[in-house]
């Protein structure tokens, strides 16, 4: 919420109590900010309003004014009379107005909710035991609040198609659908892929895709998130685990520099799904389908799982010793990564100092953006590398400069973080010429030729922060434990640095690294890790404004505004 929005509030009367709400807000959102809830199904803050579920009916009234004179109409006590509307109105299509009176707890409102609830449940199958939505289902929640507890409906329920595959990642169960049309509106308004719609009429209305089309855009799984019932389910998560066993940890999507806010759902150290987390400054309530599949890297076959020296598994201490011995021979070059967290990049820069590295390189990973939540830069933390001073210019896709340096014999040892040297353009001859110390998540050409290999952790196994396309620093948390025997990335970097300068290594924590960073990096003055909050903080990055970043305009990023970044960042902080 920006500062000026906070300033403008109006007073409305909720159930007899005057409350302050933001001006121009939707009534449901306004009430939600007061900590209460008006039950609703079809309304979604990021979608258009259709008002078809009728769950949010409330009694509305405005202070009465004489039509002719405009004078307030007073009752016997001299208090302005309230003109209650004769029929209950839906809160979702109502914008708050000064002096507005609403009743959310009156008998009429309760009757409305009970009635709508009963109607919704009439043709809803008793699928809860096999329904993936159970546990986070709005229908279940409101049924406990407003349901009757038994059914007066003795007729046969409607039969509609079940288990319909409407897209590569989406399964549709029409019987469960309550026709709220959120998915239709999302596909049309947000994903710009208008493939969903209703066929048939009345109680037989059926959600389906346009003939011959599928719901296969890269945002299709958001329909699963916004479906208030279990009509749309994710084939990836389907029947894998009940949600009440899962623990949600806030995290950041590493797919691209958008840095979508996510929640990682795990049970007993196994991740089952990733869902978006609302952040109006970054991703609203959406994320890409491809970003949701990233958890699979945790158990990927090509994961590097053990410390290796000369290709043989070894202990952490032995690997450190081997690496230090190699690096102390001098002429070390570092290939940093934009996939590492801000803290790791900072410690890497410290290590670069400690080793007196010959040069620091980085590899860019660019692809096509979709102008929504997938940006051209496919690394989550390129701007972090700029902030920490690891690099001063945007990286190239190939390590040609490094290759030349190797050819010229300026480099003996390569410390590589994450990157695949062969893929980044080094020839086999060049790689053979140097000793490689590799730290990364996966096995690749770098690890295959490495003298020492250090396994690193995925974003789910550690905590830290990323700097996104808008120079917004956002933190992620530890969702699952690290693989057995693997130390935290920060610990590894600190150990290497300390051994290089002959200190005894400490075990750095993320907040401790932040204390150091806040001192050394101007942009981060006055910030600490905890202060980032769940939604992150934008930092002033005016000095990088002239760099030719590759991101084009997308959902929350506008390159035109880049010059104003600093101002904007200040405002969003």
């Amino acid at each position, binding site marked *: 919420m920006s500062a000026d929005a906070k300033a403008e509030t109006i007073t409305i009367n909720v159930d007899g109590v005057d409350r302050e709400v933001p001006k121009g807000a939707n009534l449901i959102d306004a009430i939600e900010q007061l900590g209460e809830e008006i039950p609703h199904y079809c309304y979604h803050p990021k979608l258009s309003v259709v008002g078809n579920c009728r769950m949010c009916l409330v009694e509305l009234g405005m202070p009465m004014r004489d039509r002719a004179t405009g004078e307030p109409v007073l009752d016997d006590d001299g208090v302005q009379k309230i003109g209650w509307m004769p029929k209950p109105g839906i809160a979702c299509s109502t914008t708050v107005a000064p002096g507005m009176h609403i009743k959310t707890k009156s008998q009429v409102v309760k009757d409305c909710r009970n009635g*709508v609830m009963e109607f919704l449940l009439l043709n809803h199958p008793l699928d809860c035991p096999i329904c993936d939505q159970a546990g986070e289902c709005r229908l279940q929640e409101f049924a406990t609040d407003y349901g009757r507890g*038994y059914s*007066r409906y*003795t007729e046969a329920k409607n039969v509609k198609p079940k288990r319909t595959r409407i897209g590569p990642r989406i399964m549709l169960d029409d019987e469960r659908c309550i026709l709220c049309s959120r998915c239709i509106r999302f596909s049309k308004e947000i994903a710009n892929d208008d493939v969903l719609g209703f066929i048939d009429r009345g*109680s037989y209305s059926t959600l389906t895709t346009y003939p011959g089309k599928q719901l296969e855009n890269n945002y299709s799984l958001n329909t699963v998130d916004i479906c208030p019932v279990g009509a749309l389910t994710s084939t990836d998560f389907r029947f894998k685990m009940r949600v009440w066993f899962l623990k949600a940890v806030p995290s950041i999507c590493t797919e691209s520099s958008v840095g979508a806010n996510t929640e990682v759902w795990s049970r007993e150290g196994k991740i089952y799904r990733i869902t978006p987390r609302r952040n109006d400054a970054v991703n609203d309530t959406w994320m890409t389908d491809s970003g949701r599949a990233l958890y699979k890297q945790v158990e990927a076959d090509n994961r590097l799982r053990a410390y290796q020296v000369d290709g043989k598994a070894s202990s952490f201490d032995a690997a450190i010793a081997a690496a230090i011995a190699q690096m102390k021979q001098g002429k070390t070059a570092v290939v940093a990564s934009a996939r590492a967290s801000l803290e790791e990049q900072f410690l890497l820069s410290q290590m670069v100092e400690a080793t007196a590295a010959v040069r620091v390189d980085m590899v860019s990973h660019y692809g096509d953006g979709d102008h929504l939540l997938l940006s051209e830069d496919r690394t989550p933390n390129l701007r972090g590398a700029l902030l920490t001073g690891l690099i001063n210019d945007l990286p190239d896709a190939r390590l040609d400069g490094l290759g030349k340096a190797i050819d010229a014999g300026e480099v003996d040892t390569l410390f590589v973080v994450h990157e695949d040297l062969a893929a980044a353009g080094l020839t086999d001859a060049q790689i053979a010429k140097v000793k490689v110390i590799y730290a990364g998540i996966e096995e690749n050409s770098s690890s295959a030729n490495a003298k020492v290999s250090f396994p690193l952790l995925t974003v789910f196994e550690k905590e830290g922060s990323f700097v996104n396309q808008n120079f917004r620093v956002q933190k992620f948390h530890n969702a699952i434990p690290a693989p057995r025997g693997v130390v935290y990335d920060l610990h590894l970097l600190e150990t290497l640095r300390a051994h290089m300068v002959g200190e005894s290594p400490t075990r750095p924590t993320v907040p401790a690294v932040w204390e150091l960073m806040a001192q050394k990096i101007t942009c981060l003055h006055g910030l600490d890790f905890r202060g980032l909050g769940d939604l992150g903080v934008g930092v002033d990055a005016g000095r990088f404004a002239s760099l030719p970043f590759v991101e084009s305009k997308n959902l929350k990023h506008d390159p035109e505004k880049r010059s104003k970044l600093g101002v904007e960042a200040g405002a969003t902080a």
Partner: protein
Amino acid sequence: MAIKEHRLIFKNIDVEGYTNDIACYEKNGGYADLKKAIGMKPEEICSEVMDSGVRGRGGAGFPAGMKWKFLDRKSGKPIYLVCNADESEPGTFKDRQIIHKDPHQLIEGMMIAAYAIQAKLAFIYIRGEFFEGARILERAIEEAREKGYLGDDILGSGYSCDILIHRGAGAYICGEETGLIESLEGKRPYPRIKPPYFPAALGLYQCPTIVNNVETLCDVKHVVNMGGKAFSEIGTPGNTGTRIWCVSGHVQKPGYYEFPCAALTLGELIYDVCGGLLPGRSLKAVIPGGSSSKVLRADERFTGKLKDGSEFDWGIEDIPMDFDSLMAAGSMSGSGGVIVMDDTTDMVEALANINSFYAHESCGQCTPCREGVQWMKKVTGRMSRGEARMEDVELLRSIAGQIEGRTICAFGEAASWPVQSFLAKFNDEFVAKAKQQAERNAGSEAPQALETTLI
């Protein structure tokens, strides 16, 4: 026939030798009023219509002049006029007669109205089942266009407006203003939520739009013809002009009859105009304004106060046929479809019939109507099949109560009012039926209430 019809709109209809081509229409003074209107300022026409007090003939009875006044003219967006010819209310068949037999009258009325509101384009949204009507209208429009009554530069006035015919796909809900607009836009006819989508401000393609009934638009022609003041003198104050009553059901001579408002009572309409009931039958109930209006029971007394303060005490035959009196009697004149039922009618069957119509026509957008109307149909269907349970009457009442006033459009009321009024007025009949059937089915495998528990 004691009371003489006063035919205004139907003046030429059914006259020997009158055809629906433009030559015949012009011969009978057609398009003179359009010429007159073109000579007037649009605001003048509007105020004439306002003065005439003509009320919408589609069902709600909202004054047409008022509706035009609400039009958002400042937005700078084009204004549209839409003629609602989606006549699908059971018991109503007046618009079809106008379209079939005097289409030019409608076109003339529409052009006057379009000129008055300065519409950019006018549409006739005609019910999908009216194949013939659409054909006739298309021909009529072609004829009128040739003569310069519509199209570019109408009658040399510099005002241009054309009429497009849009055939519906056959759904009752398309008769609802905003549903009609959605359908016209090419979407499913889901009625829009009001607020904010009042057609006068955000109508067709989010532009200011006026939607009027066929009969209303024809009335506009006559307002221009005789002047608003003269028009308002037909009928009583507040209930001006003539109305076409479409009488159906158990009368000797069903059909359409045009009378000035309040010119006759319901009794006179049934017994004098329509020749009374079949021999040996007695009147049981009347639905006075299409199936969605509330039923009137033959042996009840209607008492209360009129708007002007006078008290009344009517039997069913004494109710004057106009907007306000029928409203005062607890029903409405609606679209003018008078359905007469005699003592052979089983009210449960009648309600089951009405319910299955509404269940079939519910658009399914909002929950109470989608689920509730279907449920009511199933309950009354069960009752008419002989599988009623004792609690069904109360159940029906409860369902109807849960629908009324909680839906997006007026369909909810249209569907729940018949149920509520049937149950209120013929409660004994429903209870007796339920009891009889429940007793007969006791012990058998009839569906038991509370069989399923939720979760």
